[in-house]
């Protein structure tokens, strides 16, 4: 009798057919449309776009549908699709100062030019299940104000005038591209930020939280959080000037951090930065905290040995597609290695027993 391992191909096909059936669920229930996912599960769509590194709400909605709502699986689908897309070039840096803000708050100033705009936020909602929503999801139209026409200045700009916040000198250097060059350590801030913005929300959140709890604490104030749409412009060589090719929604967070000064730097406020696709508030704040923690060397701070200060540790483990792939690969057959281990353990056991037995006989 030989336990057959043949038939892998048929088994795979059948498993996929079953998966498709499970994804659809009961056919008594109307099928989800991509538009429903895009419009009504928009924060899931945003997360998939952010960690998938591709701004396309329709594709993200498709990925969520195909992944049965498993967002990491959906992010994976988007990443795998993204690598096949040709690169036509790089856009100009987006100007978040010109953002049409849906939301813009500062925790450091009671009021500032541009005002405090709450926008569509969960903040201050009471987290009570709304059973009415189970029966009827229709809502009355929200009251509308008039949109601000002029650009909303960044809060940190006001601190800059006083020379009390760390200066971020502008640079025209072309940043590296995480998706085109292998990550090597030590890396640099542009690559760190790229890695964090596509990093797993849960991982980045946990890292940020650890800094708040004292592992490389750098008490952060949300200097500003803004969410809104910005224009994407690209230089077209044939035209000789930049044209607007589209619009994306972004969440930007700038933190202002306490800093008592170091051997190299005077006392001042320091900064962390987060920028994420879509309305991704938690992620962008977390990103800013981790960014700040990773800047210890540049600020002449002590390395406290905290995980969030360790660039190689943070960046090597933040990508959920890498992590989930490697984690789940242990489901694959390993019987060759295991056989090898079996032989070894049996041999070591035999030798250990031989060593023990004569001793016992002597006693």
């Amino acid at each position, binding site marked *: *009798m*030989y*336990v057959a*391992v*043949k*038939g*892998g*191909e048929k*088994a*795979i096909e059948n498993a996929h057919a079953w998966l498709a059936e499970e994804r659809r669920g009961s056919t008594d229930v109307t099928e989800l449309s991509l538009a429903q996912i895009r419009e009504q599960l928009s924060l899931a769509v945003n997360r998939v776009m952010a960690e998938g590194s591709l701004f396309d709400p329709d594709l993200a909605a498709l990925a969520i549908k195909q992944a049965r709502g498993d967002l990491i699986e959906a992010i*994976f689908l988007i*990443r*795998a699709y*993204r*690598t*096949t897309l*040709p690169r036509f070039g790089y856009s100009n840096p987006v100007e978040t100062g010109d953002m049409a803000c849906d939301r813009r708050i500062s925790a450091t100033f009671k009021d500032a030019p541009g005002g405090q705009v709450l926008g569509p936020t969960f903040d201050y909602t009471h987290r009570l299940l709304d059973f009415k929503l189970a029966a009827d999801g229709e809502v009355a139209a929200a009251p509308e104000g008039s949109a601000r026409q002029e650009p909303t200045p960044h809060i940190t700009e006001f601190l800059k005038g006083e020379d009390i916040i760390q200066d971020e000198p502008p640079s025209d250097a072309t940043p590296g591209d995480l*998706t*085109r*060059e*292998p*990550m*090597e*350590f*030590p890396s640099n801030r542009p690559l760190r930020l790229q890695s964090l913005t596509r990093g797993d929300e849960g991982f980045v959140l946990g890292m940020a939280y650890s800094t708040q709890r004292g592992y490389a604490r750098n008490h952060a104030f949300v200097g500003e959080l803004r969410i809104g749409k910005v224009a994407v412009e690209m230089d077209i060589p044939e035209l000789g000037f930049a044209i607007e090719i589209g619009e994306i929604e972004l969440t930007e967070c700038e933190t202002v951090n306490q800093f008592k000064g170091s051997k190299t730097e005077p006392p001042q406020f320091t900064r962390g930065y987060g920028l994420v696709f879509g309305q991704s508030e938690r992620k962008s704040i977390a990103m800013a905290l981790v960014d700040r923690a990773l800047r210890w060397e540049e600020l002449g701070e002590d390395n406290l040995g905290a995980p969030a200060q360790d660039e*190689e540790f943070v960046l*090597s483990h933040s990508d959920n*597609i*890498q992590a*989930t*792939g*490697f*984690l*789940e*690969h242990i489901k*694959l*057959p*390993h*019987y*060759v*290695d295991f*056989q*090898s*281990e*079996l*032989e*070894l353990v049996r*041999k*070591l056991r035999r*030798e*250990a027993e031989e*060593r023990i037995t004569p001793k016992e006989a002597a006693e």
Partner: protein
Amino acid sequence: MSEYNFAYLDEQTKRMIRRAILKGLAVPGYQVPFASREMPMPYGWGTGGVQVSAATLTPEDTFKVIDQGADDTTNAVSIRKFFENTAGVETTEETEKATVIQTRHRIPEAKLREDQIIVYQVPIPEPLRFLEPRETETRKMHSLEEYGLMHVKLYEDISQHGAISTAYAYPVKVSDRYVMDPSPIPKFDNPKLEMDAIQLFGAGREQRIYAVPPHTKVVSLDFEDYPFEATKANHPCDLCGAEDSYLDEVIMDDAGNRMFVCSDTDYCRSRREAGHVGRLAEEDAA
């Protein structure tokens, strides 16, 4: 899948990978960083091997994929299908007929030839990783040829267990220079690493490619008084009677009876076709 390029990857990406492969061949055993792409299968499931195969395959090639030595394990089936769909290359289960062989955890029993390429899937390319988790440190150790830590580890194994307690992914020194992880092949396969074929190693998640050119010296690390030993289960194959092949142990019933069969399914099949008979072969046929 006509909307994708031959073998899935675009030509620019393949060129980048080929450069890394050539560099790897020029510096045997050195881990070349490369900008690994997301593939439509998960990291850790052979994306490095798949990218190396994609950059290596030509339309005239015949492709074989094995996992644990077998052509019919699920992931081998999946990768073979991927290239059937995206490259349209001919595939085979016969080691002899293949020009490119992608493998996970085994080297085929049949001797490979000069006109063949074997591509290994590598999970952790760094042989020093479990002694030193930091890439910045291990790269330094390689560049200084500082392998003392590895020898200390092997020595401690002997002093604690009486033997080197590494059974697979057994470290080797390539061309008297770099210590290399041969991927998680059983140490039984290590002597085969000196071969006529080109050996390419791809680690997708870790973004590394390395290589061993044909006829390159590959030495499994050991000590004079504790020489390296390629071990396998002390049985012949129960299907084909082979005494020289690596064996899988299969549990047959609730009483815990076992049988041993070749892990290399093609080797076992060809031996049985040539008339070799193992202990349980007749029952299998029945």
